[in-house]
């Protein structure tokens, strides 16, 4: 799958979603058992806590072809580990500021508190984010050629679509 199509209508956004085991992942399970339909663009990765999400994960997702990253955690005060979601909030707040300096739109990183009973909210958030990123278009990074390539002087410093990991 390539995300380098030029026409926005052909563009299928890829969203990497990190959901916490105790709340948001359970909510997405609930959405599934309740047969709610929502955009298939989010690839869900279950983590034990939103506090486990290292900002490096978000950068790695963009690097490897994500057009957006969604993070789901427990509501403030409800964290299974007391304060993991607050740690996540502090990191993501600062990360968003850094990403805006790097030209990445704020819609491409979204943090949501979704409890285990809010399956409908998973549906709404994923649909909404898919629409927003579809409107923004693909995230085109400017990544140098793989190391030691002798093609570097003529090619790698011209903008190109990012590498795609299958």
């Amino acid at each position, binding site marked *: 799958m390539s995300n380098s199509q030029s026409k926005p209508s052909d563009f299928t956004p890829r969203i990497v979603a990190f959901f916490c085991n105790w709340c948001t992942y359970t909510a997405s399970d609930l959405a599934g058992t309740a047969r709610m339909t929502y955009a298939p663009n989010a690839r869900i990765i279950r983590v034990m806590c939103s506090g486990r999400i290292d900002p490096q994960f978000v950068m790695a997702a963009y690097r490897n072809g994500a057009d957006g990253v969604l993070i789901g955690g427990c509501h403030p005060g409800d964290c299974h580990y007391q304060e993991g979601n607050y740690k996540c909030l502090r990191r993501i707040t*600062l990360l968003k500021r850094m990403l805006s*300096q790097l030209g990445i739109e704020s819609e491409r990183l979204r943090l949501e508190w979704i409890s285990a009973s809010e399956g409908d909210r998973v549906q709404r958030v994923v649909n909404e984010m898919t629409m927003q990123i579809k409107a923004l278009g693909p995230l085109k990074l*400017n990544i140098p050629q793989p190391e030691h390539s002798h093609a570097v002087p003529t090619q790698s410093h011209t903008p190109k679509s990012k590498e795609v990991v299958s």
Partner: protein
Amino acid sequence: MSKPKIGFYWCASCGGCEEAIVDLNEAVLDVVAAVDIVFWPCAMDFKKSDVEAMADKEITAIFINGAIRSSEQFEMAELLRKKSQFVISFGSCSHEGGIPGLANLYKKEDLLSTVYSTAFSTINPNYTLPQTQTKVPEGIATLPELWETVKSLDQVIDVDYFLPGCPPPVKLVVDAVTALLSGNLPPKGAVLAPDKALCDDCTRKATKPEKLQHKRFYRPSEILIDPEKCLLAQGLLCLGPVTRMGCDWACINGNMPCTGCMGPTSRVRDYGAKALSAMASVIDLNDEEEIQKSMDSIVDPVGTFYRYSLATSQLHSAIHTNGGK
């Protein structure tokens, strides 16, 4: 028996790395006794043609400092790679893109327009820009081409070892030269510095509290810095927790926080993201608005966390095609 040949070359750098060689002081005499310096444009009169005349792999080790951001630097890096057995990436710029790597926040045309037009001290009404080729009565004069982005050395040629630091500490340079001469070498691709975080053996470690908790950060100019106490505990953005040791705490001993020039340890893939994570976790606030306000105390997140490593970060450069700022 002829002595091993070594050389030094500089690309996009400030000259501080050359200073680091001079800082060897008397030890440089031992180095010169053991090796022949066959190329060092900064200090001695050698030309590119001297290198071209050498046989392949004739130079035992070449130390290249500075980032790669022009066709000329790339050409020299490739030539020196061909003529050398070992290429050692010397200093932060060569290792991770360094301070010049922050140019990757901007488009090439914006950099050129700042330097050649809008800068305070520039008068250039015709907006004359450097050209790669210019016709002159004698023929065609050429200049190297500036690249769109700044790259680290290992993003353009095969590199054997890395000597980190801005500039690399003398002790590490001596150790590296000794290892090269004795043939007692680590695996290819190794960073020639201890693989531990700066905080691990910090002279101020005893004063670091169990849990760091701050409402905001301070810049060194905003507070009186206690010369004994852990700098993070004083609310300064000290990047010791995420930075490789080997500098002998030069900045810490000078009562200034670590800015991360030694780069990450081997476990970290994106230095800036990891540093951001460590610093954001220190903020002891739960309310979204208060967190936003406290983050205002970090004035320039990219310049703080990617100060030396933007070019080798996961994103490599800012994105302009999507209409970002």
